[in-house]
């Protein structure tokens, strides 16, 4: 009896096997202080094998145009984030508490960083 023969798998072109894709270096979150007196602000993220290299990569990737005077890098896995599902319990109660906003007096022009 004739067996149904599976067609052979397509032949790969001759050559070395493709290199194993190594797990890439870990992800880091980058925070940059624009100038003295301001706080560090999240600028983005990048890959680097360790903290020292992450700092250097951050310098190259995020401060090319003189954006910063100080850099923090934090492993992305160390960040605990609020979940979008918890948006209401987290943030909604603040919406109707206008007295928490400093809107009842005028700020002088000179005060820029409030």
């Amino acid at each position, binding site marked *: 009896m004739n067996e149904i023969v599976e067609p052979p798998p397509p032949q790969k072109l001759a050559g070395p096997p493709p290199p194993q894709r190594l797990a890439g*270096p870990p992800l880091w979150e980058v925070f940059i202080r624009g100038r003295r007196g301001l706080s560090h602000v999240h600028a983005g993220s*990048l*890959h680097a094998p*360790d903290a020292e*290299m992450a700092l*250097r*990569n951050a310098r*190259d990737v995020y401060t090319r145009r003189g954006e910063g005077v100080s850099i923090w890098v934090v492993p992305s896995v160390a960040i605990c984030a609020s979940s979008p599902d918890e948006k209401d319990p987290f943030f909604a109660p603040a919406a109707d508490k206008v007295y928490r906003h400093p809107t009842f007096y005028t700020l002088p022009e000179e005060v820029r960083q409030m």
Partner: protein
Amino acid sequence: MSEGTVDPMAPALFSYALRLGDDALILSQRLSEWASRAPEIEEDIALTNIALDLLGQARALLDYAAVIEGHQRDEDDLAYLRTERDFCNVHLVEQENGDFAHTIARQLFFSTYQLFLYEELISSTDELLAGVAAKGVKEAAYHHDHALQWTVRLGDGTEDSRRRMQAAVDRLWPFTAELFDADEVEKELAVHGIAVDPSNLRARWERAIHDALASATLTVPSTLWTSHGGRRGVHTECFGYLLAEMQYLHRLHPGASW
């Protein structure tokens, strides 16, 4: 210098500015070959940042050389219209990128040398050279740090990265001796406090490199042959290909800009 008089130091100063400029220009060209090809996008940006720093140094130095020469040539003429024998960069900077380890070894050797050179050139009696060095020394310090970090990580990394880093150090080692060759140009200018005699940098460079290789668990090569002649316009085989790529656009469309 008043009009009509010729500064007796001018030919040597022209040569000196040209060789420092050529070193920076050719290494910049090599590093820019990594654009879009580096192992990680972060490294792509780092290497091209370094290439741009070097290009900035090259422009200032070649512009200065053109002014000293006084033949109505400008920095572009010097970069794009000279032929191979007119370039006086060291052989090290023209060596091909190879794998990432080769590029890092070349960076380590050159940036360490350039850092020490600029640190001394800051006190040059020549205002422009002192200015280029003052700006360049911060850049070179960063290039050196970048190369050192990678040398340690590759050397003291996996079995494969260590093997490749050692191979790169061994392959490029013979091209490092030329960095410290001093000819009449440097010696004459050094007497007047204009140039740095590179032979004085050697001991410090060797200490720094030995330390770097030791912390990367790599072996200092014991190769004896050394490569020389770049300062006289004699180059290695790969240099012609580099020039062809670097110059063809300018030669095809003279004065092209965008």
